[in-house]
């Protein structure tokens, strides 16, 4: 009865977000740290890209590294990378940004070596020099074509070495008091509730923010996020709406679905030591037969309502050098006859008993539906007899990489938008997957593409790498997700920022 009393006159509430120039984004992703040295996660990156600048960045729609705080960067020789700074850049506290700040930022990152940070990506950096205020030199231990793209990661944003808000050289800066040279300053941060960014007056770069203020509101559940969007509490709902939310918002009035190419992928991993099959040939046949049986299109349609695309290479579409090696090798749709033949030729008795692991607590609730579907497809072929097992993420990730699961679900998110990150990470014999896969030819190709700065060489190498990956099938790519946001009418600019780099460029968004 209390409800009735209070509810009078409440109608029409919640649409107070119409003040000029303020963009409100709702999300379910919560950040770890706004100090670049302690960040290695997308929600932190989003804010860091807005508040700081990197030497290099990926421009909207591109997939290569372009100067941001730097004027230009080039390889002087295969292990020396030199950047020239732009003149006149300032941090929001008024202090000058020069090469000393860059060197400080990288040295600090390596020194702090924060357990949650990405300093491991700098393993190849021997030393950094700042011979004069305009020049920074990176001395690399080995040739590395991916280095420019590594520099675009938000973990390597430039922080102030001196000035009123200088960062400590050996300690993380509290996320509530950060200083950068980017398009925004941090106005307020209340962990797991809200982050507020204010357009920075001191930004001197080429494309300043198209809005005055950005509010990032955190939600626990995608359903709450969706409702908040519908009643106008937020302007943009991005990461992550469930497939059901997206489908139901598609027809909703006042709301538009914006999507663009994304590079987040899901794949199935085989541990070549534990998987079924008594010889290497039999094991290979089992893996190939799975690749021939899985119906990616059905998963994309039935489980994800078309918000993901079938994936036919570990390198997702949208990245340079990506192709569709699995499609070429096994066809677009399941080929049961071929799978049957593969198994029969290798003398594998069917149905093959297969234990597949998945986790309910890391890849969203839909992954349970996905694995139920995969089991169904494999079982229905009559070639496999799948047992599904699941456990909570932390234990899952420990067990999976310590040689305990014969086959398991996994996802990947780019460290840097390069094909190398999607091949060397899985196909190298030192891969974190720890699945006992070792192909010398693959090793050679991986080393070659990494060392080469020639586009033609890398193209040739990656074609070969993806082809061998599809032949050996240590992993089966399943799908690649589109970046999907739901925005209210009048919001523009979200489309422009959706590209394989995964940088959410708040500054492109405006509201009329």
């Amino acid at each position: 009865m209390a409800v009735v009393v209070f509810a009078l006159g409440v109608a029409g509430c919640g649409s107070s977000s119409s003040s000029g120039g303020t963009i409100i984004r709702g999300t379910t992703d919560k950040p770890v740290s706004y100090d670049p040295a302690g960040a290695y996660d997308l929600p932190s990156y989003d804010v860091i890209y807005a508040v700081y600048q990197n030497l290099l960045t990926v421009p909207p729609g591109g997939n290569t590294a372009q100067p941001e705080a730097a004027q230009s960067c080039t390889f002087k020789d295969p292990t020396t990378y030199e950047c020239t700074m732009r003149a006149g850049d300032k941090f929001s506290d008024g202090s000058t940004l020069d090469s000393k700040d860059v060197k400080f930022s990288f040295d600090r990152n390596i020194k702090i070596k924060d357990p949650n940070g990405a300093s491991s990506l700098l393993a190849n950096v021997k030393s950094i020099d700042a011979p004069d205020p305009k020049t920074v030199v990176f001395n690399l231990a080995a040739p590395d074509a991916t280095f420019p793209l590594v520099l675009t990661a938000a973990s390597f944003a430039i922080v102030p070495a001196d000035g009123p808000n200088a960062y400590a050289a050996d300690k993380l800066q509290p996320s509530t008091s950060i200083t950068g040279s980017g398009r925004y300053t941090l106005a307020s941060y209340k962990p797991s509730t809200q982050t507020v960014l204010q357009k920075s007056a001191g930004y001197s770069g080429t494309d300043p923010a198209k809005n005055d203020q950005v509010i990032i509101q955190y939600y626990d559940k995608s359903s709450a996020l969706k409702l908040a969007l519908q009643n106008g509490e937020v302007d943009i709902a991005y990461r992550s709406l469930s497939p059901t939310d997206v489908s139901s918002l598609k027809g909703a009035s006042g709301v538009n679905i914006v999507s663009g190419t994304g590079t987040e992928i899901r794949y199935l991993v085989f541990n070549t030591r534990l998987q079924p099959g008594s010889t290497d040939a039999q094991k290979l046949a089992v893996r190939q037969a799975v690749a021939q049986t899985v119906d990616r299109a059905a998963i994309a349609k039935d489980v994800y309502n078309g918000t993901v695309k079938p994936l036919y290479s570990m390198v997702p579409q949208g990245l340079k050098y990506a192709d569709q090696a699995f499609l070429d090798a096994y066809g677009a749709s399941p080929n049961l006859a071929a799978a049957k033949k593969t198994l029969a030729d290798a003398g594998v008795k069917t149905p093959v008993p297969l234990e597949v692991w998945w986790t309910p607590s890391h890849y969203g609730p839909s992954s349970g539906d996905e694995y139920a579907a995969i089991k169904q497809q494999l079982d229905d072929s009559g070639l496999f007899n799948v047992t599904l097992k699941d456990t909570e993420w932390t234990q899952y990730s420990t067990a999976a990489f310590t040689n305990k699961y014969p086959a398991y679900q996994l996802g990947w998110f780019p460290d840097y938008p390069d094909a190398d990150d999607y091949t060397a990470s899985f196909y190298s014999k030192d891969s974190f997957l720890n699945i006992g896969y070792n192909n010398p030819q693959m090793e050679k190709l991986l080393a070659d593409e990494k060392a080469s700065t020639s586009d033609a060489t890398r193209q040739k190498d990656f074609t070969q790498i993806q082809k061998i990956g599809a032949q050996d099938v240590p992993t089966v790519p399943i799908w690649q997700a589109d970046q999907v946001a739901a925005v209210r009418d009048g919001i523009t600019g979200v489309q422009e920022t959706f590209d394989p780099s995964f940088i959410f460029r708040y500054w492109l968004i405006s509201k009329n």
Partner: protein
Amino acid sequence: MARQGTSLRTYVLTRIALSIPTVLILLTMVFLLMRVAPGNPIQAALGGHVSEKQIQARSKRAGYDKPIVTQYVNYLGDAVTGHLGNSLTDHRSIGSILVENGSATLELSIAAFAVALVVGLSIGILAGRFRDSPIDLGGRLFGIFIYAAPVFFTGFLAQLFFSHTLGWLPSSGRVSPLTEFDLSQGAQPTHFYLIDSLVTGNFSAFWDAVQHLILPAVTLGLLISGVLIRLVRVNLMQTMKGDYVEAARARGISERRVVIKHAFRNALVPVVTVAGLQFATLLGGAILTEETFNWPGIGSELVRYLNERDYIAVQGIVTVFAIAVVVVSLLIDLVNAFVDPRVRY
């Protein structure tokens, strides 16, 4: 068994002394549970992205591989001196987690409790007064039904109806995003949004906060009222049969007066006891309400930190929470001892 004549002071001191080992055991239990639970924050955050070797190197750097005894001694020392540290994952001080999220939980709990008292007492009294009448049966059934419904289910229905279908109330959150920012820029003496907004004269923020509070507070309050109804009813029926009530009746005092003036007061004593305990568990059970209504309280933070295996954060929150429970039950005992000398033994 009761040793008469023990002074109140002795009782209080003994009671306080006895709660110290309970707290100690609680601290140990939190610590052990969190260390025995497999995985660590690095594993939770970066597993599936970097190699196992790297994870181990990082864990070592973070000091997660120190001997468990060393960690335990450090933890106890810190807990005793009140240094709860910073969360491992997002580097927040436990103190600020308690202030920012704890206040949200407390604000919701108090509001819910007010609802529960109003609903629980009135239905309980009516049911107890008109025993075995349709009112009694109806009241009891209401109590049972509401207690049988999980808060996330009633919450789901309430959101569906009041927020989605009718559009009367916001479905989740503590205030709308703009109000949140507005409040964060002003003074926040209590971190209770209702109070802070009134104190600073920000009435639109106050109204916004009230609207957001209604659904979760009423949902949770009704749930608790189920317990209260049961209690009040039983206790009222007992006291109604007490000698002094009979005496009052014999003196010709109206039944209405008997119930309100005499029986109810006495029936309230055990109700206060259980209500106090209920309030303590309310904080612990907040997880579900907060998850349902996206309320930025300490319960939902606890679950998040648990998932991330942030044991410093989990330990800190649970420690403070457990101490609060112990203190509440201590207070209840003391109040009872003060009111009713028979309790002291």
